[in-house]
């Protein structure tokens, strides 16, 4: 610590700080204020204390039941897509070409889904999976003879939103993993070849440990995105059939803008936000720890 500390440099953060105050801190404070009150609009508020939180956290109430149900669905959704996307992404990265024009072709093709906006992805799949005019839906229903209709079948709806997310985001994991794989020096593989290591041994002892950091980032990004996903399921299923695909964000919007229950929605936002904050902190801490340990490993 020989570096001189020049604290006045902190003022350079001021513009960014002001921006954050206006677009994050002030709205956040407002949400906290809403969460302890009830309103019928017109800026008239009535004190409700911790009433909304009590209702929200009690599964026997209407609000609490909805909250726990959609939280459960959201966690299930995140778990499913992580369980599919991470291994699949690594597999794709492993089978991608290592040199030549095919690398560029692969990278471009893989990056394409990442560039499509969420609502467009939703619309693509909404039409693609329709049983009457959609290529995929028609094929499954009329050629394979399997009843598949995401507007009426719970399984079909879940299948559609999961496959849609896998289609949209596996590329991210694959590209991250590919970058991680490229950074492994050839000497490692040569040493493994001399030792006569099997393909599996190379994967578990060389590639996977080297991928740990990118995979952590990938899992964090995918968890966050899937935990706050809104547009895609909203466009395809609208939370239905029934409430079977109503995840937290969809339910939140229904409560806040559909029913205009700002107090309930605010309490739900705060709890939702706290869960995300806690998960983020854990991931961030683990990630920085992995970084800090790296020099020691040599």
């Amino acid at each position, binding site marked *: 610590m020989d570096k001189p*500390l020049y604290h006045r440099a902190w003022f350079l953060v001021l513009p960014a700080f002001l921006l954050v105050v206006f677009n994050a801190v002030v709205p956040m*404070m407002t949400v906290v204020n809403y969460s302890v009150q009830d309103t019928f609009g017109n800026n008239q508020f009535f004190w409700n*204390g*911790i009433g909304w939180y*009590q209702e929200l956290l009690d599964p026997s109430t209407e609000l609490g039941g909805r909250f726990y149900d959609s939280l459960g669905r959201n966690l299930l959704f995140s778990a499913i897509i992580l369980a599919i996307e991470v291994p699949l992404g690594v597999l794709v990265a492993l089978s991608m070409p290592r040199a030549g024009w095919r690398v560029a072709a692969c990278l471009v093709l893989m990056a394409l889904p990442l560039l499509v906006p969420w609502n467009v992805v939703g619309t693509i799949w909404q039409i693609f999976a329709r049983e009457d005019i959609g290529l995929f839906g028609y094929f499954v229903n009329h050629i394979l003879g399997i009843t598949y209709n995401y507007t009426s079948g719970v399984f079909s709806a879940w299948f559609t939103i999961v496959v849609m997310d896998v289609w949209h985001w596996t590329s991210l994991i694959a590209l991250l993993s590919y970058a991680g794989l490229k950074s492994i020096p050839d000497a490692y593989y040569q040493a493994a070849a001399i030792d006569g290591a099997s393909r599996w041994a190379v994967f578990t002892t060389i590639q996977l440990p080297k991928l740990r950091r990118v995979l952590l980032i990938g899992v964090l990004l995918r968890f966050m995105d899937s935990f706050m996903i809104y547009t895609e399921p909203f466009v395809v299923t609208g939370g239905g059939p029934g409430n079977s695909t109503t995840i937290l964000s969809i339910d939140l919007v229904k409560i806040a803008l559909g029913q205009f229950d700002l107090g309930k929605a605010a309490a739900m936002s705060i709890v939702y936000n*706290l869960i995300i904050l806690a998960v983020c902190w854990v991931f961030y*801490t683990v990630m920085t720890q992995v970084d*800090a340990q790296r020099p020691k490993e040599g």
Partner: protein
Amino acid sequence: MESLAWMAWTPATLIFYGLIALALGTLTVMAIRHPEVERVGILRIPTTRGDRFFIALLGSAFIHLIFLPLFGADTIATLPVGEGLEVSRLWLASGISLLYAAAVFRWV
């Protein structure tokens, strides 16, 4: 204050944010007087004073969130202030949070 009406401030939330602002101010002054030094505690991660404050705050929020559905917020006492100030059981969670925060600052 009419222009701020949409923010729907209440005395309780004002005090809450006031305390947080006060704590952040105190941390800033402390950081200037005694620069933060990382240390490794029972979580085996290096933390500064600010990190510990964050862990304490986040943990306290979860203590309240877990306490509320488990034990409720019934009135456990009435203080002889004004018409009788009712004390909710949730204040116990706040007490636990304070102990927890002290533990975080001491051992994490």
